[in-house]
């Protein structure tokens, strides 16, 4: 198996200068006074108390180098990947853990927003130990150490999908499986639909579809189980009250990127809120600080939100129905939880499991459970 694209090894090496700059920027950031809204009702977002605690930890106690060492234990690379239609090459950063087994199956892991490839580290560890997989976990264009989208033309999800397919095949793999959540799920969908001969099977932990009859204001919940009904209600609550951030991403990314880019505390509040609210159990604050540090030092927040105004690859669009065998792992604390019978209108679901524990960041929160699901599904659909 040979690479047809240029690949260079990569290690994260954030300079002390950059880390000092970050600390200084944190110190200069002002914390809002206490008001009713920020005093403890986390319904209104991150609380003032949490921001202060996280900030204090960031300045004293959080050890980026320790995080960096952990990340660098994985095999990272940057590849120069050709874009279709002679649009030139594009640098993609990724983890690539190749198995020594000749029958190893290739698995592409796609993160979302405000995620990163860091979400997959525990999962990769678990899957690596089996020796049965070649694992590729890229950073989306505009995230971490991947190149940012061009500044003089529109760049969307299909561009991302084409790049990732070119990456995997460029590394020498003819067939592969994909796992994704959040908007990685849209990318997965586009890749699978466009490249049915290359994609053996796909695993999703996020299939946000409404009822098959399209009636989202008064959905017909009669054929759902009690758990499914409860989840549908929670999903509608999220769609009603939880989309301020995505509407900002969709309509005012210029302003928002400049706002969030003006202070690490602004960044911490904007993305920290999601880590806390969208997870089943609150992640460790160091995990959130590691992610935020990576966002800040790579200056990538503003280049990460282009996907929100692009409706390509939407789960409820019949043009993007996934014919490839699909696994659906549904986690109880996911934001929009479609019951299996609704999700079946969006993909050829051949494997399904519902989990009581775990939320939106499944790979980060419950890596063992997710790994188990992936292994079982791949053994079903991609027999060695």
């Amino acid at each position, binding site marked *: 198996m040979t690479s047809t694209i240029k690949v260079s090894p990569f290690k994260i090496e954030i300079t002390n200068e950059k880390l000092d700059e970050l600390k200084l920027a944190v110190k200069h950031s002002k*914390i*809002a006074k206490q*008001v009713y809204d920020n005093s403890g009702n986390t319904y209104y977002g991150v609380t003032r108390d949490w921001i202060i605690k996280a900030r204090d930890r960031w300045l004293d106690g959080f050890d980026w180098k320790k995080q960096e060492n952990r990340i660098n234990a994985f095999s990272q690379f940057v590849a120069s990947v050709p874009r279709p239609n002679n649009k030139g090459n594009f640098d993609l950063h990724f983890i690539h853990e190749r198995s020594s087994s000749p029958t190893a199956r290739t698995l592409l892991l796609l993160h979302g927003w405000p995620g990163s490839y860091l979400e997959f580290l525990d999962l990769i560890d678990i899957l690596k130990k089996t020796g049965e997989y070649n694992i590729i976990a890229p950073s989306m264009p505009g995230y971490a150490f991947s190149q940012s989208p061009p500044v003089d033309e529109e760049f969307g999800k299909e561009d991302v999908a084409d790049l990732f397919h070119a990456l995997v095949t460029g590394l020498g793999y003819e067939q592969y499986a994909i796992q994704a959540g959040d908007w990685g799920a849209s990318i997965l969908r586009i890749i699978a639909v466009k490249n049915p001969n290359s994609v053996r099977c796909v695993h999703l932990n996020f299939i946000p579809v409404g009822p098959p009859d399209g009636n989202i204001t008064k959905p017909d919940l009669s054929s759902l189980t009690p758990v499914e009904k409860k989840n549908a209600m929670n999903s509608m609550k999220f769609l009603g009250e939880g989309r301020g951030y995505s509407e*900002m991403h969709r309509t005012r990314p210029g302003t928002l990127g400049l*706002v969030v880019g003006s202070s690490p505390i602004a960044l911490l509040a904007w993305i920290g809120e999601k880590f806390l609210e969208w997870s089943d159990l609150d992640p460790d604050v160091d995990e959130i600080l590691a992610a935020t540090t990576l966002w800040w030092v790579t*200056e990538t927040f503003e280049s990460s939100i282009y996907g929100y105004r692009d409706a390509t690859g939407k789960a409820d669009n019949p043009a993007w129905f996934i014919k490839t065998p699909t696994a659906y792992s549904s986690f109880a604390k996911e934001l929009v939880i479609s019951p299996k019978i609704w999700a079946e209108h969006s993909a050829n679901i051949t494997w399904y499991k519902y989990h009581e524990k775990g939320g939106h960041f499944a790979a980060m929160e419950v890596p063992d459970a997710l790994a188990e699901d992936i292994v079982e599904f791949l053994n079903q659909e991609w027999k060695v």
Partner: protein
Amino acid sequence: MSGKPFSTPPYPPTISVSDFDLAIPEEQVALLKHLLQLSPIAPETWENKQDKFGVSREWLLEAVEHWKSGFDWRAQEKEINSFPQFLAKVKGSEPDEEFDVHFAALFSERRDAVPIVLFHGWPGSFLEFLPLLSILRSKYTPTNLPFHFIVPSLIGYGFSSPPPLERSFSLEDCASVMQNLVEGLGFKDGYVAQGGDVGSLVARLLAVNDPNCKALHLNFCQMSKPDSVGDQDVSPEEGEALAANAMFGQLGIAYAMEQGTKTSTIGLVLQSSPVGLLAWVGEKFIECSDQTPSFDVILESVSLYWFTRTIAKCFYPYREMFSGSQLGHGNPNYRVSKPLGYSWFPKEILPSPKSWVSTTGNLVFHRAHTSGGHFAALEEPALFLEDLEAFVGQVWK
């Protein structure tokens, strides 16, 4: 007593009222400049090279540069302080609640002067009305000014108190405070309430709840089309403005959703850096005005929010909006039976036609203009004043 012209309240107040001047400590002014030097500006992206995704990076760089070196806060402060200002201690609707209420005013010495109370919105402030006050004090003297103009800062804005810490504060609570302010200033023979943006709801609440409020003037009356109004009951200009309105509804309201549902997060985000605050607030001045105001005007407003640290304190009206509140111009429970006047400006972002507004009250006065936008008093003070004088002349007996 400050000795400034127009600064003598006409009646002895029954609440504590003291003279007020802005005096931002020098160290805060210097710190702001220092922070501007240090604040990072995000790199260039496809999105921030355009105008359609909010403020452009280019605009922000220019604005920050002006804020650092061209903008003179002290000079602005001096100009603001040329207007009489006061700080009153006013009771709220809950027992034991008392608020500082800041207001600018031009008081007349005429016994028959008509009190008009004008309410700003978000991201506005009392500053929006200073050009209008400026025209008034050039046009009249304290002995012949036919009105008292009172311009409060809403609770949570400017130099007024923040909302209480222990409970959720509403616009109705804010209106109660304002009602008590006006009463405490001794205006027992009635007053006219005026409002735009969030302030329009405060003004309407006064017209509905305060027997002492005799008339209501609005330059903003956001509502859905009433069932009783036909699609044809709009002028060509009104129809054009409604089409622009529809675009705003699709693409322009994310800020309100965020402010209303993640009030804590956005308050913390925007208080963390003056540059972030400038981008978020500046966008509104650019997008919602007919002609974009000068850097000085925008920076004066943003500086006020920055120095008073009020950006995290002012979002309660949005929280209310997104929590199922029934308060709205279109709700029949808030119909105004007193004389209602409406000034329509073509670049208002949510420009209700006359036929819609007339279902919300006893509409006796309507003017449609060919210029001006959301910040009407700021953008077109002469037209705005003309309308007010004509409205009051018509309805006040």
